[in-house]
Each structure stands twice: as structure tokens, then as C-alpha cells.
């Protein structure tokens, strides 16, 4: 059905959703860390906006609450934490060299088409609207995963992870008018804890390989040959403790 | 009746022991004549045995009790094996006690102890002889079994007496028997240590097999061993003669029948002996490692006999 037949609020939802998708493209191709964090914050804000609009359309009031939650968590708290960490890790100026950016973007586009094709079989007339939203959020999730695959910078990976979460939120609110509250809270709590732990790990990684390039976390592998392993593997005594 | 049968069995057992040296003497005589020598009398082997029996036996320090027991075991088992082969009359109880397979088994027993005796003293020659003997045996024994199986499969019996009865009963020119005969002859030559496989009249260490195992024996022990070898020769001769050409053998235990049987078998044996002598004069001893080829030929013949029996004489 054409967009003109939709009520205005739903049109707004679609527009916002489209922008969310756009932001995740921005995230994918943004080489500067700080800028990427900002883009992520915007994405969170947009998801929150979508949530409010959906709440307005469906008079489902607990969605206002989850909108607020999203806003605080995704648009303010987490970006702020990331910001602080990048500063403490002295990464404000960090610019990652993206490998084959065009290819990655192409892949992302392909993923968008793919996810739309996926949700096509959900044919029920009154659902086309939500169906498209599901397609968008699925695309956001997949692009987030793609971003984690393509970025070798730990913070960037975390951004990818978080934008996956955004996609999930989007799906949850727009397609299903919000999960039960307990679940929402649990998820939010988990995300928060995860963020804290990520922070802890940034520093642990930093001190262990004094960089945040995840490609250099490659000691635990089966393919290495024995000689190399004897140096590469954990100094065995340290790993398992002194005997007797 | 039964008593008579046993009597006849005993008689022929004694006959085997008695006739064995004679056959050897006869073969030597013929060979001598073929070589334009006069040669010793045919009774020379008896004299040799007597001489050996009267000599004292000498036993090496390193010999074990087995060394002294072996001659008796070899002699006895060979003799028993022989006495199961109908010599002058069929349907002997001994033939029922031990069929062809047992016959082969008894010969194997004799050979087993012969070889052990060879290795007992611990000389190089003894071991060599034992090793070679076992090689020859390993190849000859299956050939022998195959040959007799050919008979057994057509006669539906492994009992020598019934095989001969069968032959006498309905004689036919069977290809299988032809092959079996050939195989059996080759086996006999190999087993009795005749040219071209072995040379009974040599002590050239590189060529001897049977003699190498007897090197350390002397006196009565040697006599027993020699005698056993002679009995073995007669045994094979009789086997060939009486199975493939059974005519004349006594069908019952009447003295006349036995007499004719004796005459017949003596005649047959002397012909075979002559033939053997001629063969040994014209042939030369072959290298040990051509012996396998010789015996494989025997095995092949025997096997062909068996197969042709199966294929050509179905229902026979």
C-alpha cells in the first residue's frame, strides 16, 4: 500500500526509521571515532523519538517510559561513557583506516535488500506498515554486525554492538509496541552492565597489548605451529598455577 | 575273521619293514648297472643296517634327551603310517584306524621330530637341513593332500581301502587321476629325498637336506633313521602302485590272495624302482631354490586334478 494512505504519525515513524537506517550507514563509514560516537548518539535519540511517536499512535503509555529509558541510555549515558573512555584512552584524534569502504557499503546495501526480501512473506494486510519497520530494524541489526566484522578498533566494534541493540529496540517498539516492562528493564540493565564491562575491558586490553586493535588479539588459535605456540601460549605456570 | 584281518595287518606291517631295504638295494643295483658298474648286491642295505646296529652309538655332549628319543619316534610313526597303506590286501583294519589324512599326519609327525633332532645338537648343518626339510615339506604336504583328496572326492571316502575298492570296482580313465598321479610322483620324489630334489648319496653340505639332519647320528640311531627313510620310500611306492594300479591286490585274506597280492606288489614296486633309478641317472640334482618350482608344479598338478574332478567328472 502506498505511504500516502497511512496516517501522519505512521508516516513520521517511517521517516524516522529511514533516518535511523541512514545513521547506521554513517556509523559504518565513519572513520573518526568521536564522530562515530556522535552518530551513535543520534541514532539512539532517533530510536527514542520513534518510540514516543509509536506511543502516541497506539496510546500504549508504558512506551513513553521506555522511550525515556532509550533516550537516557542510548542517546546520553552510553555515548557519554564512550566519550569519556576515548578521552582517557587518548583516542579523540583516532582515525581508523577503513579497508575497502565501497565494498562494505555495497554489502550493507545488499543486507538491506536482503532483510526486506526476508520479511516479504509476512503477508497480512494490516501488517505491511510494521512489516517494513521490521525490515528496517533487521537491516540495522545486520549492518551493526557487519560493522563489527569490518572494524578492527575495539571501540568501533562496541559501537557496532550497541547499534545492533538499537535495531532491536526499534523492532521491539515499532513492530510489537514494546516488550513487557520487566523485559525492557532487564534488557536495559544488561546493556548498561555490558557497557561498563566493555569499559573495563578496553583498559585490560590496552594494558595487555597496548593498543585496541582487535586483530592483534590472536594468540588463542589452533592454526599456529607448535614452536610458535610455546611462546605465544600463556606462560603455562601462570595459566594454571604452581604445582604442588 | 577279525583276528585274521589283524594278522594280515601285522604281516604286512612286518613285510614293510622287511621289504624296505630290498627296494633300496634294487634301486642302487639298477643305477649301478645303468652307470656300467656291477654294484653291490641288492641285499647290501640289510648288511649296512646290521653293521650299524652292531656299532656303539655316539651322542654329542650338547645333545638333549630328545636327540635319543627322536629315532624311535621317527621310525615308529613312519612304520605305522606305512602299515596303514594296503600292501598285499585291502580292507585292513589299520586302514580303517587311520585314513589318508592320518597317514599324512603321521609322516608329518615323523618329519617334525626328524627336523627337531637335526637342530638339537646345535650344529650349522643340522639347522640347515631342518630348515630346508621344512621348506620342502611345506610345499610337498599340500600337494600330497590335494592329490589324495582328488581320489577321496571321487571315491567319496578318505579311507584308502575304500579308495582302492572304488578303483577296482568301476575303473575309468579319469583325467583327475592322471594329474593326481603326476602330482603324487613328484611329491614322492621330493619327500623321499631323491634326485632331483635331494641326493641320498652325498654329504656335500651345500646340497644335502635329509642327510644333513642325520649327520650327528651313529650306530643304532642312524640305523633306525635310515630304515625309516627306506620304509618311507616303500610307502610312497606302494601308495602309487596300489592306488593307481590296484590290480592283483588281495581282496580277502585267503593265503592264495595274499600271495598273489605280494607277488603283484613286489613286481609293481620293482618296476617303479627301476623307473626311479632311470630317472635319477638321467636327471641332475637341482639347486635348492628351484625345488619350490618343482613342488609348485606338483601342487598345480594336484589342484588341477581336483578341479578337473569337480568340473569334468560331476556325479562321478
Amino acid at each position: 500500500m502506498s505511504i500516502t494512505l497511512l496516517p501522519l504519525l505512521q508516516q513520521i515513524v517511517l521517516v524516522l526509521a529511514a533516518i535511523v537506517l541512514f545513521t547506521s550507514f554513517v556509523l559504518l563509514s565513519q572513520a573518526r571515532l568521536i564522530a562515530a560516537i556522535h552518530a551513535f548518539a543520534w541514532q539512539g535519540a532517533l530510536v527514542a523519538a520513534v518510540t514516543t511517536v509509536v506511543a502516541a499512535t497506539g496510546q500504549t503509555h508504558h512506551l513513553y517510559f521506555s522511550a525515556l529509558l532509550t533516550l537516557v541510555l542510548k542517546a546520553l549515558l552510553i555515548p557519554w561513557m564512550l566519550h569519556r573512555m576515548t578521552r582517557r584512552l587518548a583516542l579523540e584524534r583516532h582515525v581508523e583506516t577503513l579497508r575497502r569502504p565501497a565494498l562494505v557499503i555495497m554489502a550493507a546495501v545488499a543486507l538491506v535488500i536482503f532483510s526486506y526480501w526476508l520479511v516479504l512473506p509476512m503477508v497480512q494486510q494490516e501488517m505491511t506498515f510494521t512489516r517494513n519497520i521490521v525490515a528496517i530494524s533487521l537491516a540495522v541489526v545486520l549492518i551493526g554486525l557487519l560493522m563489527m566484522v569490518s572494524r578492527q578498533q575495539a571501540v568501533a566494534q562496541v559501537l557496532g554492538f550497541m547499534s545492533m541493540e538499537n535495531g532491536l529496540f526499534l523492532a521491539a517498539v515499532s513492530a510489537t509496541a514494546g516488550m513487557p516492562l520487566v523485559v525492557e528493564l532487564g534488557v536495559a540493565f544488561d546493556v548498561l552492565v555490558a557497557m561498563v564491562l566493555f569499559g573495563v575491558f578496553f583498559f585490560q586490553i590496552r594494558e595487555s597489548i597496548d593498543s585496541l586493535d582487535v586483530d592483534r588479539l590472536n594468540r588463542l588459535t589452533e592454526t599456529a605451529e607448535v614452536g610458535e605456540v610455546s611462546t605465544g601460549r600463556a606462560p603455562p605456570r601462570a595459566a594454571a598455577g604452581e604445582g604442588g | 575273521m577279525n583276528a585274521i584281518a589283524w594278522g594280515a595287518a601285522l604281516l604286512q606291517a612286518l613285510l614293510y619293514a622287511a621289504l624296505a631295504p630290498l627296494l633300496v638295494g634294487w634301486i642302487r643295483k639298477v643305477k649301478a648297472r645303468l652307470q656300467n658298474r656291477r654294484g653291490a648286491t641288492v641285499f647290501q642295505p640289510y648288511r649296512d643296517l646290521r653293521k650299524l646296529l652292531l656299532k656303539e652309538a655316539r651322542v654329542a655332549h650338547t645333545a638333549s634327551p630328545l636327540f635319543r628319543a627322536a629315532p624311535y619316534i621317527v621310525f615308529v610313526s613312519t612304520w605305522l603310517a606305512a602299515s596303514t597303506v594296503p600292501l598285499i590286501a585291502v580292507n585292513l583294519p589299520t586302514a580303517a584306524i587311520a585314513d589318508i589324512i592320518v597317514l599324512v599326519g603321521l609322516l608329518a609327525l615323523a618329519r617334525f621330530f626328524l627336523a627337531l633332532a637335526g637342530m638339537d645338537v646345535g650344529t650349522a648343518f643340522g639347522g640347515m637341513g631342518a630348515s630346508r626339510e621344512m621348506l620342502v615339506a611345506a610345499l610337498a604336504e599340500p600337494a600330497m593332500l590335494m592329490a589324495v583328496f582328488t581320489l577321496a572326492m571321487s571315491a567319496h571316502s578318505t579311507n584308502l581301502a575304500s579308495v582302492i575298492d572304488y578303483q577296482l570296482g568301476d575303473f575309468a580313465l579319469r583325467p583327475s587321476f592322471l594329474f593326481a598321479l603326476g602330482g603324487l610322483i613328484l611329491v614322492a620324489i621330493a619327500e623321499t629325498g631323491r634326485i632331483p630334489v635331494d641326493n641320498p648319496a652325498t654329504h656335500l653340505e651345500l646340497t644335502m637336506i635329509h642327510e644333513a639332519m642325520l649327520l650327528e647320528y651313529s650306530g643304532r640311531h642312524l640305523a633306525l633313521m635310515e630304515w625309516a627313510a627306506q620304509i618311507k620310500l616303500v610307502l610312497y611306492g606302494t601308495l602309487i602302485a596300489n592306488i593307481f594300479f590296484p590290480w592283483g591286490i588281495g581282496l580277502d585274506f585267503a593265503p592264495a590272495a595274499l600271495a598273489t597280492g605280494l607277488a603283484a606288489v613286489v613286481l609293481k614296486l620293482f618296476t617303479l624302482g627301476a623307473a626311479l633309478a632311470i630317472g635319477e641317472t638321467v636327471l641332475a640334482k637341482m639347486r635348492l631354490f628351484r625345488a619350490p618350482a618343482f613342488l609348485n608344479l606338483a601342487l598345480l598338478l594336484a589342484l588341477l586334478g581336483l578341479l578337473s574332478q569337480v568340473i569334468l567328472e560331476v556325479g562321478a
Partner: protein
Amino acid sequence: MTQHTALLLAGLAVLLALVSSVVSVAAIRVPRVLRLLVMPLFGLAGLAALAAGLLILEQGGVATATLPMGLPWLPSRVRLDVLSGFFLCVIGVVSVAVGLYGPAYVRGFERGRDSLTALGGFAGLFLAGMLLVVLADDAFLFMVAWEVMSLSSYFLVAFQHENAANRRAAFLYLLMAHIGGLAILLGYGVLASFGGGFAFEAMRAAPLSPGWASVAFALAFVGFGMKAGLVPLHAWLPEAHPAAPSHISALMSGVMLKVAVYGFIRFVFDLLGDVHWQWGVAVLVIGGISALTGVLAALMQTDLKRLLAYSSVENLGIIFIGLGLALVFLGTGHALLGALAFVAALYHVLNHALFKGLLFLGAGAIVQSTHEYNLEQMGGLLRRMPWTGLFFLLGCISIAALPPFNGFVSEWLTFQAALQAWQLESGVLRSLIPIVSAVLALTGALVAATFVKVYGVAFLGQARSRHVRRARQVPLGMRAGQGWLASLCLLLGVLPTTVIGVIDVIPRELLGAGLPQAAAHGWLWLTPVSPATASYSAPLVIVLLAVFAGAALWGMRRSAVRRVRRCDAWDCGFAPPTVRMQYTATAFAQPIRQVFGLLFHIEESVGQREDGAPRYQLSIADRAWSLFYMPVARAVESASRRVVRLQSGNVRVYLGWTLATLVLLLWIIS
């Protein structure tokens, strides 16, 4: 009711075996326990098993019971019938010998560092496992007992594990045992899925299409054949059997292989029921190959225990030739001939248990008193350990199938069965079977050669090394163990008719056909088919041998000079022979090696030792390795090398895998 007494006795045997294994825990503190308590209990268990077997054999009939174990819907059931009874006897006889032999033998380990508890405990479990395999009446209990048997014997093979070769042997053994077990399990699976249940009755009733029946047969043949050490699945056997302590080797070679035979018989003749003659052909061919290659390999060995192990391969080959004949005859509807071949196989099972047990015990005695496994170092043992020498000689005669000992009887029966091939309709079979019997004959002759070599090199001649020269008589118990088996060898050789009269009940109850003629003419005459066809009277052979011997001795006394003078060996008048001039085992085998060499990888090389002395090297390898085993191992290795690329160590690659999997699945479902 006597059947139930028999079953109780069998249960008692299992119990005693378990007790012996539990008791041996005490050996950690008090080593004496092993020889004072564990081994006697072991022997008693064997005795009980023997009694149970004999009882059920002479009673006939069946006894069953249910154990408080197993799966909830399949309580483990045990069943004692004549077949089980026969194999109980086989197990029992050897175990009794081990019980007699063990106490003195294990003394040798009390000073060693290897755990005596393991030795006694796993030996007990081993015995219990074998007994349970024979008694099991459902696939689950059977498999449990079977694997317990494998596992405990594996621990025994690995008993002296400081020797790397033993570790390798144990690994190979366990691996192949495991694979064989899986094959058997699968075979039972086929039967169960058709018969609707793991209980043996259900399987007997299973309506199998010929195709599935053949599949089940093939699986069983592979599984049990692997345990029985049939070529080409025999590779573990010559490694594992020598590695274990000798009394265990005796059990493994003498008994465990027979348990595999039992499994095969139970599976094919009992559970599968109607057999196809094509199976028989397969069994015949494999059996023939095993017999021939087994004996040739044995002939070329210089390690005594390895040699014995290879000769086990050969003997199992003979047993399976018998079973193959039975299958052919049954498959073509000649029940009586099938029974004949079957009895021949069973008889050889019993015989091989006896003389192979005897020979391994003898080898153990040699090892204990000389610490020597290598034939090339032995010699002249007959004068140093006369009793062992005598018993070993009897064992050699029996295994070489020479009359009047037991080995000959079973070989004679097998030949008799083969010679009935003329009754078959199919010309192919009529010409195949004679060839197999030719192989059998060749095998017999080679076995004789092999054991002439063993006995001549080990017991005759002169000692080739100092420690062998210092060999001493072994204790009474060890001699008793050997004596028990040796006398049984002679007994079974002399009284075959009686024994077969007893065994005859098995084909009658299992195949529905017996040998009515076998014992029809009194205990003196063994006439499997009919007196006209073939007859053998072992007692009379003995008597005649005695008579003739008497005659010969008498003659000697009268005619010959009785004096015997000792002197140096003449040896064609060369210099008096030294120890090193004796023919070695390698030299003995050389002619035959040259004739049959193409069956093996043989590498001979004559080089110089560092001290300049010439040096002869000979290596004989089993072709089965390069043909069957190495390819498999290489395939697994390369596959794993490829697979580990998954674990590249880069987290982004891992995420890529996740993404790829996700996309792939999404694509699949829509």
C-alpha cells in the same frame, strides 16, 4: 532344574571374578594379597565356569534369569544354553590354568613399580566381562560386557606402560576394539530396528529382507572379525598380545578371541537364523587369507610372543574356515554337513584355547626365568627347564596338528567337512572349497615349520646368551598350570569321539541337525559321516604306536650294542661347533621367506657396524599397514588440519562466520 544350577554356577563364576578384582584393591598395601587371594579366586571362578559349562552341556536345555540392571524398559537378562555352556568351558579351562600359574608368576611383579591392584583388578574384570558376554541375552548387556572386556584387557595391555611400545600397542588395541564395538552395535541396531527390541528373542523373530540381513551380517563380520584378529583387521593383535603379562596374553589369545567367535556364532547362526551361502564364501575367503598370512608372518617373527600372537591369527583363520564351510552347507540346505563343519570349528576353538594358552604360559615361564623375548638369544632351554620344555613340546605338536594330539582332530574334521563339497550342486562352490582346503593344508605344513623353528631354536641347541644360560626351573604352580593344559591337549587328542559326543548337542539345539553317526560306533571310532567315508581311531593309533615302539625297542635290545658314548659333535669333521655357529631363527625362516616374500615388505641390508664387523639388518612389515591403516590415518590428519583453520584466532573472522551462518540460514528458510 539342573540348568538353573548351571546358571547359578555361572553366576557364581562371575561373582568370584568380580570379588577377585575387588579384593585386589588391598594389593596397594599388601602385595602378597595378589598371589595368595586374588589369583586363587580367579582360578575358582574359572572352575565354576567350567563346571557350569559341563553341566549344561551334558544336560542340554536352557536357563534364563533377569538381573537388576540394564535399561528401564529392558532389564538385563542372562541366558545359559549349550552354546554359552561350551564357551564357558573354554573360558573356564584356561582360567583354571591361569589360576594355577598366576600366583607364582605375579611374584615377578611384586618388586616392580607397576600397580598390582591394576593387574589383579582388571584381570578379574576381564574374566567377568568375558563370562557376561557369553551369558548375555540382550544386546545392551552384551555390549556392556563386551566393552568391559575390551577396556579391562586394554588396561592390562598398558600394564607395563613405561615401555613406549606397550603404550602404542594399547592405544591401537583400544582404538580398534572401539571401532569394532561400534560396528557390532550397529549390527545389533539393524536387528533391533526390525525386530523391535534389543532382547535376543525379539531379534531372532526379526523379519529381515535379505539385503538388510546381509548388511547386519557384514557389520557383525567386521566387528567380531576385528576382535578375532582376521586379516586385514588383525593389526592390533600382534602388538597387543605380547605387550600384556603372559598369563593375560594366554587369556587374550586363548579365550578373548574365542569370545569374539562366540559373538559371531551367536549373531549369525542364532540371531540371524536363515543364512545365505554367499556369506559363507566371504567367510571362507577371509578365513583362508587370515590362516595363510597369519602363519607366514608368524614364521618370520623372532619375538616369541609376537610369533604366538600371529599364529593366533592363523588359528582364528582356520576356525573361520570351518564356520564358513558351515555357512555354505547350511545356506545350500545340507544341514548335516553344516553341523559337521560347525563341530569342527567348535572343536578347534577348544583346542586353540588349550594349546595357545599352554604356549603363552610356556613363553611366560621362559620370560620369567630368562627375561628374554627374543628367540635369537635363547637356546638349550630344554635341559635347563625340562618340564616347561616338555609341556611346550606337547603344545607345539598339538598346534602343528600332528596325530595323536588334539590339533590334528579338529583339522581332520575340517578336512572331512571340506571333502564333502562334492555333495554341493553349484560347481563354483565345489571348486572353491578344494582350493580353500589346499590353503588349509599349506597352512598346516607351515605351522609345523614355524614350531620346529620355535622349539628348535628356543629349547634345543645351546644357549645363545648369558642370561639364558642361567635360566632356572620355574616354580611348581607355573608348571602345574602348563601341565593341566598339556594333559588336556593329549586327552582331547585321544578321546575325540567322547568330546564330540558332548559337543554334538550344540548344533542339534542351535541348527537343528547333529552328527548321528559321529559317535555311533563306540568311543573307539570317530566316524563323522559314515564308517565307509572316513574313520579315525585315535586310541588305536596310540596303542599301535606303543606296540610298534615296543617292538622297535625290543629289537634294539636284542641286536644292538646298548652302550652310548658321549663325544663332541662331529659336524662333518669341521672345527667343534660354537654357540654362534648355530642356525638362527632368521636363518631358519630364510628359504620360506624367499619363497613367500612377496606377501610382506621385506628389507634386507648388509652393512658395516662401527667396529667394522659386518652387520645384517632385516625388517619385515605387514602389507596391511600400508594398504588399509595408513590411508585412514592420513585422511583424518589432513581433515583435521583443514578444519582447525576455523579457529583462526581473529575475532572479526569469527563474527564473520556468525554473520555468514545467519545469512545462509535466513536464505535457506525463505
